[in-house]
């Protein structure tokens, strides 16, 4: 048994199981165990960084199940470990008094273990096993929410399982086409028969994990119902990390695809649609957490576009953006959690006081993370976004335009919420509210500062990411860089003007882009949940089952009424024919003889 396996998979797993079954009088021990397990994980993810290890686990029946620890997944594990640590500290601080706290901790450790398993394994089957196993903690963590939102958890489970089915199918195909279960030995040319289908299936499965449309609709629901650390750890970190990891593996290692081929264009269109629609929805949300979750879906679109551009540059951009996104989105979710703690709600109507004064640290964190989110220069996400723009532009300018529109929308959304949360006039008398407990805002501030620090010292993450993926050969020309930056700044200015305009004219905070959005009637689509594929699916299923029920009723009628009726009728007629009159019987005999002679 290798130490990596112990540290990254076995320890969190055992800690999680132990935590679940320990009696409640050891609560302090449980909390310490939880934090220790997460810390150990984060520590070793940094400790082992830079090594390359291939080992055979002999995990099951002495099968050759190889695990591979190398550049890409070691980086992913650092990101995951950091997010897990922040989320764990925040969870311990914020979920003290809730009922299912320890269930949540246990499942979070399980999720960490399984996610590490997905990253480490070099075997398709084991990958699928861990990937599917993640469903269990996912369900458990959502169900650990305040009102036991089992239905939301079920919705998540159903949507994810559809996506996972695609992945399973794709893995099956690629194993058949590539002829090996080893991920590192698989390298399939896309022109091989069946390879395209395998690619599509695996791509859908991986992208759906990040919340790509139409597999997104559980995220906004979960954002309201599930505990906040779930949104930070699962939706923001684990799902994105695993999704981007697998996407990069797919386009980089598993398939050989030419840059600019049709399938890459289609994949990019898929990403663009996700980001545009999700950002439009995000603009309209009335709940901060919901807005964040839609924005999260939109950011997944950016990453998909970058990966699907197939260039090394694009992959670096995607990985970079993923890291940035995890940092600022974590911070924004923490902000949302803090506000919820203070105000009891993150809906617009729920905000009663002037949070700028009562919660200065939270406000400061929001400003930093929001700036990163909007793509303000010298913040973390600014560079990653520029890189994604560049990679999109290198394929087609139309993608670039769409991405810019998406950025405009997300900038508008975050500015709008900033004004609403922190600059609106208090509706009631100011109740003397305090800043949240210290362990809640420490993670908030750390992630907020990270947005700034990594923005200024952007060489650090850039180098890390480049080391992992590979050096970018051709940097873009200065002119293009200048154009990109100026367009981004222009977009920000537009968003700012839009919100200033809003302050004067409109109340909904959408400004002049609202007119454009109204025309598409995006709000109605959203509010009637007509766009939720899950609801559509469930409706269809209901209709189908009703139809089946009716058919069944018809069949029952056939069996209960028609068949016995006709049998009875025939039976009665045969009975009546037997009158007991011997001449009739003799007549039958004669008829029978005639019939026989006809046959001969």
């Amino acid at each position, binding site marked *: 048994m290798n130490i990596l396996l112990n540290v990254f998979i076995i320890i969190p797993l055992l800690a999680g199981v132990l935590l679940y079954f320990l009696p409640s009088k050891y609560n302090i021990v449980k909390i310490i165990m939880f934090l220790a397990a997460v810390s150990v994980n984060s520590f070793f993810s940094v400790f082992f960084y830079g090594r390359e290890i291939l080992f055979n686990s002999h995990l099951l029946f002495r099968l050759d199940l190889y695990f591979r620890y190398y550049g890409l997944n070691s980086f992913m594990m650092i990101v995951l470990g950091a997010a897990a640590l922040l989320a764990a500290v925040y969870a311990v601080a914020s979920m003290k008094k809730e009922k299912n706290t320890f269930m949540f901790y246990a499942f979070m450790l399980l999720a960490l273990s399984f996610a590490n398993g997905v990253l480490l394994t070099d075997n398709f089957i084991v990958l699928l096993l861990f990937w599917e196993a993640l469903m269990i903690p996912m369900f458990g963590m959502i169900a650990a929410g305040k009102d036991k939102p089992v239905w939301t958890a079920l919705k998540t489970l159903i949507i994810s399982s559809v996506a996972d089915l695609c992945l399973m199918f794709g893995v099956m195909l690629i194993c058949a086409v590539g002829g090996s279960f080893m991920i590192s030995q698989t390298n399939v040319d896309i022109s091989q028969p069946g390879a395209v289908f395998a690619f599509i299936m695996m791509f859908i499965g991986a992208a759906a994990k990040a919340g790509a449309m139409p597999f997104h609709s559980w995220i906004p629901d979960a954002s309201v119902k599930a505990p906040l650390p779930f949104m930070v750890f699962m939706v923001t970190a684990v799902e994105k990390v695993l999704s981007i990891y697998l996407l990069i593996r797919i386009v980089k290692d598993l398939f050989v695809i030419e840059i600019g081929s049709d399938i890459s264009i289609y994949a990019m269109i898929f990403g663009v649609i996700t980001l545009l629609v999700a950002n439009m929805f995000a603009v309209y949300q009335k709940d901060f957490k919901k807005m964040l979750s839609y924005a999260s879906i939109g950011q997944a679109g950016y990453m998909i576009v970058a990966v699907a551009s197939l260039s090394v540059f694009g992959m670096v951009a995607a990985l970079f953006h993923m890291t940035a996104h995890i940092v600022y989105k974590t911070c924004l979710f923490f902000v949302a959690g803090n506000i919820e703690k203070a105000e009891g709600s993150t809906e617009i109507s729920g905000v009663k006081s002037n949070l700028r004064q009562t919660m200065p640290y939270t406000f400061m964190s929001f400003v930093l993370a929001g700036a990163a989110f909007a793509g303000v220069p010298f913040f973390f996400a600014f560079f990653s976004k520029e890189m994604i723009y560049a990679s999109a532009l290198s394929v087609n300018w139309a993608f670039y335009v769409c991405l810019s529109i998406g950025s405009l929308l997300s900038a508008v959304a975050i500015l709008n919420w900033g004004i609403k949360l922190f600059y609106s006039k208090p509706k009631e008398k100011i109740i003397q509210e305090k800043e949240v407990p210290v362990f809640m805002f420490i993670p908030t501030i750390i992630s907020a500062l990270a947005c700034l620090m990594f923005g200024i010292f952007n060489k650090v993450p850039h180098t890390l990411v480049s080391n992992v993926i590979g050096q970018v050969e051709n940097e873009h020309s200065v002119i293009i860089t200048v154009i990109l930056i100026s367009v981004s700044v222009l977009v920000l200015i537009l968003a700012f003007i839009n919100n200033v305009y809003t302050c004067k004219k409109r109340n909904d905070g959408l400004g002049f882009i609202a007119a454009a959005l109204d025309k598409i009637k995006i709000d109605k689509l959203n509010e009637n949940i007509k766009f939720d594929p899950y609801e559509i699916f469930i409706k269809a299923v209901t209709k189908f089952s009703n139809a089946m029920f009716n058919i069944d009723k018809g069949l029952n009628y056939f069996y209960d009424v028609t068949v016995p009726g006709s049998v009875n009728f025939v039976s009665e007629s045969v009975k009546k024919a*037997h009158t007991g009159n011997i001449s009739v*019987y003799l007549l039958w005999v004669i008829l029978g003889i005639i019939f026989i002679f006809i046959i*001969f």
Partner: protein
Amino acid sequence: MSFSLAVLIPLFLVLFFNLPFYRISGKIAVFIASLFCIVQAFSFFLPVNATCPAVQNLVSYFMLDFQCDGISRLMLLTSAIVAFASILVLYAMEDSDRKQFNFVNLILLSLAGMNGLFFVRDIFSVYVFIEVIAATSYILIAINKDKNALEASFKYLVMSSVATVMMLSSIAILFLVAGGTDFVTVSNMYQQYGGNSLVTAAVVLFIVGLFIKGGVMPFHGWLPDSYLAAPAPVSVYLAGMVTKTTGIYTLIRLFYSVFGFNTAIQSILLIFASISIVLGAFAAINQNNFKRMLAYSSISQVGYIVLGFGAGTTFGVAAAIFHLFNHSVFKSLLFVNSAALEKQVNVSDMSEMGGLASKMPVTSTTSVIAFLSTAGIPPLSGFWSKLMIILALWTADLKVYAVIAILASILTMTYFLIMQKKVFFGRLKEGFENVKEAPLAITFVSILLCAITVVVGLLFPFVLNGLINSAVSF
């Protein structure tokens, strides 16, 4: 020649019973007759050619062309079982010594005719033995001399006469053409002149005659009435043996040993068998009288036998013979059950009965097993024979008829379930609180026949090898 004893002993027994100036009592006659049945049943297990010279000398005075094969032996066993059942039911049902005596005499006579029919190898002798059986049957049906019985007996007489005329004219034509009536001569002739229209007419007339005797639809008019009107022990004997022997066994014997198959004969057999199966089952569904329902069920099951036989292969013949044996056993069992009901409840209308399972556990259990066997539920014997019939049809590429056979099983299930529900299940009807189980003789017979059904079903592989495969090697 020792199988002639099967004919001679009952004849001598009848003579012995009716010696002038000395008449034995009915009870002793019953005892002797049932003993004879047991001996006959066990003779099935004796080797075929075991002879003793004294007996040979005795028998050689009678110039009968007797031969024995597996089918004959199996039929000998069957007739012994059914006759035994019938005699025991008689013992339980009839109190009058005179009636017992008469009945035993008639049944022994009939048995003599029947056993002769199994061994005889001459179409005229076949006719003679059929008539012996028929003559005793007329009397047996009308033995109680009530109005219905007499009417039923008369119907049987009229229809049988039609059959007799047909068979006799057929034999006449065949004799005319072949110059002899033994099987070999007729068979040789048929191979030579098979296409001749006169010969064909003769064959058809013979078939129709046998159809009337066997109660195949639409030649069955006499059958339900006589089964219904006959006294209980006679019903057992009639349904279990008489129609099956005079009609179906003879049919099988003639076409298996004499005429052979051709497509026209096959299609006649298959079509009439299918009509019997389906319409018989349909008619059984709506019957309210227990025995009448059984009568129509009998017609339906006869259809199965003819259908299996009509497959035209030796496997089909084996299936038919096996189903004949099974049917004799479980239909006798059902008629024994009906006798039990008749004796204990004295109501013949099924809708007036109900909930009798609690009062008559043996009768109800054995009837359930008999009906399951009839419907073809594994592992009972009826399942295997039906399976063989269906397989025979399927392998002979007569898949439509195989499907009909399978679907008609559902109808079989239907009418028997209706019967079970009406008679044995459900709530006990008023007035039946004091009903008791049938007398020992009847329950003993029920259990015996039920045991045969179950054991033959469970030991099917041995039965297939030892019993059927020796009768008809396929």
